[in-house]
């Protein structure tokens, strides 16, 4: 009886799954078009899943093994179930293979079940608590149902009451696995996730690549086209698909500095709210941590309602420091930061509601090309005593030193001077743009003002076109990132180096000799825009090593480094929380017992030095290197030069 019903049952479930999938796809298609190579994406999908995604999941070994067993077991089981029970292929070995895969899946499900006994707070509860049980039922039921086909039990096994029990198990198991996949159960992640990997908006991220630059916004306002994302339907369709891929594992939440600081942001909840938005409804069914200080259940929206009018509050979007810790950590490779900046673009470009000092800062950037409204003709005042070659005079140099807006800040000027000293000692042929330099546009862009970013960037590119140089070196990771990764979209492709990498090169080439540094313990804080955005973890450490420093690493360092709180315009929008991110980071630093924290970013320096003393000293690597330079004894020529 059961054997007769099973194929129909399977077919029925598959049809319902198909219907759900079609509905889901139609929801995604409400989004804006996006250029995606569908075929290539689908072809690449298995590799992306098995290699790239596994690489992220594998950071948690136990969970990785659990998922491999469960998911691998399920996929194999499902295929074999279709063969054995669906098409009735009568092959003992196939059936026995099915038995094996269900056992594997069962083992995985047990592990899932055990994790769910006492789940960490970052995991969502609700339907996700049901999932391990469904998995167990599915695996166990199909194990038993397959026993006769595998020749282990007689064919007649499984009739009467047992048949009903097994039928119930099959319905429950298939219901969770197939129905849930198409109709927004927890298993949706498998379906949406697979397609998300195939149609990802940043295919460059797979295969060891890196893609972190924000996408260019089309500023054409003809017609009634909204700039940025007002409604869920304003996202591109593959972004909507990406939101649906979320497994609510909460790794983003655990890494988010704003969440830890009690600011009203939780990346997981944000993505779930986007899911609510694209499908329509409320967040009443959300069973994870809320935005700190905000109640769950009040948010509602739909694909055609403005997101910030009921679904997500504006502070939530402005609390993000764009540190990319969530994106780095997300096993489904969801692009949280892109989504947040897209929504910020709407708030800034259409609504004009950039909070805090945002409005003032953007006006300054427009009117003076720097965020503090300083006279653009005073950009080189810091170097009055430095005798720097200016590009307008020399026209050509090996290295173009991109000074950045640190030129206006007295603390940052110390870093700039230290770096100039280093370059002079190494006899680098360099020049600066002087007053022709403008803000790189990073701040405007993260505040959602892509118009100002593009204006600044285009004018900078115009200036850069006039001169010949081999590469650009900067002490500001934000400028580094923007010049390297975001200017190419506007036609400016350069070889850009962060000063730590450049110094490391000089040391390796023997053009710089450094004394061993004595004194207390040192730790290193990875700036987000250097590390996570550009993968530069080694050069700063190598430079510190060259000074004989043994680093006391923080628990959160490298790609898991915690933000200083200074990125994404967060100090300007200044969304209140319970703690300050910089204070938390300083606690990380104190935990290493370090007396000095080395950094490679003037924004980080400013944020960390803003922590009330007593605290470890904050020094840029350039400053530390400048203090350890071995003076090459050539007094005569040195005097001539000076």
């Amino acid at each position: 009886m059961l054997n007769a019903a099973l194929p129909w049952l399977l077919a029925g479930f598959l049809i319902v799954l198909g219907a759900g999938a079609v509905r889901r796809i139609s929801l995604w298609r409400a989004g804006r078009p996006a250029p995606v190579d569908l075929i290539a994406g689908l072809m690449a999908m298995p590799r992306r899943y098995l290699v790239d995604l596994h690489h992220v999941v594998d950071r948690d070994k136990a969970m990785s093994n659990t998922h491999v067993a469960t998911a691998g077991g399920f996929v194999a089981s499902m295929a074999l179930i279709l063969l054995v029970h669906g098409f009735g292929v009568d092959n003992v070995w196939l059936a026995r293979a099915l038995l094996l895969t269900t056992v594997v899946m069962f083992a995985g499900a047990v592990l899932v079940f055990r994790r769910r006994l006492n789940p960490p707070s970052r995991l969502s509860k609700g339907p996700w608590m049901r999932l391990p049980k469904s998995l167990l039922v599915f695996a166990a039921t199909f194990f038993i149902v397959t026993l006769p086909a595998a020749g282990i039990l007689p064919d007649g096994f499984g009739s009467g009451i047992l048949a009903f029990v097994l039928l119930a198990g099959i319905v429950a198991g298939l219901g969770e696995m197939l129905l849930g996949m198409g109709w927004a159960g927890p298993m949706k992640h498998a379906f949406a996730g697979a397609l998300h990997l195939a149609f990802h908006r940043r295919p460059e991220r797979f295969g060891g690549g890196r893609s972190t630059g924000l996408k260019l916004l089309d500023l054409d306002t003809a017609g009634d086209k909204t700039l940025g994302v007002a409604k869920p339907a304003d996202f591109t369709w593959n972004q909507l698909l990406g939101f649906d891929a979320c497994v609510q594992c909460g790794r983003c939440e655990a890494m988010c500095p704003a969440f830890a600081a009690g600011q009203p942001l939780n990346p997981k909840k944000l993505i779930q709210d986007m899911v609510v938005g694209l499908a329509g409804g409320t967040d009443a069914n959300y069973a994870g941590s809320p935005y700190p200080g905000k109640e769950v259940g009040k948010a509602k929206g739909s694909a055609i309602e403005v997101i910030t009018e009921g679904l997500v509050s504006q502070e939530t979007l402005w609390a993000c420091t764009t540190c990319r810790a969530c994106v780095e950590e997300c096993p489904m490779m969801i692009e949280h930061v892109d989504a947040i900046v897209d929504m910020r673009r709407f708030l800034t470009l259409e609504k004009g509601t950039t909070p805090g000092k945002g409005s003032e800062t953007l006006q300054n950037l427009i009117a003076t090309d720097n965020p503090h409204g300083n006279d653009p003709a005073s950009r080189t005042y810091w170097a009055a005593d430095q005798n720097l070659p200016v590009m307008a005079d020399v026209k050509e140099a090996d290295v173009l030193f991109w000074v950045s807006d640190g030129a206006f800040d007295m603390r940052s000027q110390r870093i700039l001077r230290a770096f100039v000293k280093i370059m002079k000692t190494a006899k680098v042929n360099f020049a600066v743009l002087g007053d022709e330099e403008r803000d790189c546009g990073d701040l405007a862009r993260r505040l959602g003002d892509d118009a100002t970013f593009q204006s600044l960037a285009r004018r900078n590119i115009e200036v850069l076109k006039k001169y010949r140089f081999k590469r650009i070196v900067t002490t500001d990771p934000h400028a580094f990132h923007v010049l390297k990764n975001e200017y190419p979209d506007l036609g400016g492709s350069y070889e850009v180096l962060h000063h730590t990498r450049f110094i490391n090169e000089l040391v390796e080439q023997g053009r710089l000799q450094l004394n061993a540094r004595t004194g207390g313990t040192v730790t290193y804080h990875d700036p987000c825009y250097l590390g996570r955005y550009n993968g530069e973890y080694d050069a700063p450490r190598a430079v510190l090593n060259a000074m004989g420093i043994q680093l006391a690493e923080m628990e959160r360092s490298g790609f898991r480094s915690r933000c200083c709180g200074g990125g994404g315009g967060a100090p300007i929008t200044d969304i209140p929380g319970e703690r300050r991110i910089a204070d938390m980071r300083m606690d990380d630093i104190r935990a290493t017992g370090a007396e000095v924290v080395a950094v490679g970013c003037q924004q980080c320096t400013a944020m960390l030095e803003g922590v009330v003393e007593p605290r470890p000293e904050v020094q840029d690597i350039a400053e530390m290197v400048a203090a350890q330079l071995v003076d090459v004894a050539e007094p005569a020529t040195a005097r001539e030069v000076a």
Partner: protein
Amino acid sequence: MSSIIRKDPRKNWILRNRLHPLHQQMLVAEGAGNNAVVRGPSGLIRKNPHNIGFIGPNGIKRIDRLGGSGTVVAAGQRGEAVDTRLPLVQISNPESWIVVVPDLAGGRLTSHDRDVLGQARQLAAANPACAVVALVFGDLSENLADDSNGLALAGVDRLLHFSGDDWNGYCPEQELAAMLAVHRQLLPQHWLFPDTHLSGNDRALRLATRLEERPAMHAWQIRDGRVTCRAGSERNDVTRSLPKVVALLAECAMPVDDSRHEVLPMALPELPGVLARIQDAGAVAVDPNQIAMAEAGFILSAGNGIHDWEQFHEAARVLGATEGASRVAVDDGFMPRFRQVGATGTWVTARVYVAVGISGAVQHLQGIGACEKVIAINTDAGCDMVKRADLSVIGDSQEILAALIEQVKALRQPAASEGGRHHVA
């Protein structure tokens, strides 16, 4: 008392050694570091060259070796007896007139008024029969009209004084009518106004509009019949021939300081009846905490050293001060962000700035650069805020604020019934 001077070698050593960590404290403990009598190792009195002299115009320290030496002091003393009465300048039959409309904030001459009157005198000097007339609206205090007082010393020959309750409030239309009547009567060469918000500026523009004159506003220099004015955004100067109506910025000219003038009252012209379309409904009581930080005249600012916030708020209330805060106090959530004072917060211009428990980070000191008087309450005598402050009290802020609150309350007690309105400048 023994005449033997006891030496404390350690103390002397610290006092001599500016790099010693206790040097500042020791100087302070010795009382008024500048005038401390310091004895060298041999018992001789030593002059500390770091504590005498003054900073010259180019930032270099100057030590006047004459030290206000005998002859100079004597000359000064001889001169003083003569000073008490400056020579009186009389203009008996004026042929031409320069009218100045001083602000007289609170019934007193402001330094800005004196500068404008000084400018008027310079213009009048070209013609010995030219008199400077002060056109005054509203009541005067302290017998300003007295010939040996205020207006006389500021250079006023004649006085036109519209007084009485009708003239005390904001009555621009009536004032304009009076100015026009005076203009018809005297046909003055020039009308000079201090270019001040709502007073001189408003009057000058109203008068110029009715006279169909192009006024020189924001003028800061008059030379050779041409006037130089600050133009828009302070980026340009405009120089032009000197018009009839001029509104002058502060420090446009030196005030009169070497003569006395008559201040003869003149007969007031007949005024036509004026329909006042703008009615003054009086000053509005403003809660000091509602005043924008950048505008506030009196700020009580809190920093990391405050522990009793209730008491701080009470102190601000009792003193009638606007509350401010350092960045740390804001970061720690004790004060809202818009209260932050400093380069990264608000640049304040208060006349008096009281910093309680603020050590004085560079950005903070930048932000209070425009404050006239700074009072520091701090536990650390060596902190930068104490160096900046005009008055520093070292000690527990809680005790000092408590004593201050008590004393202010005691001071206010008799005056409590008068109503707590601040004087409106």
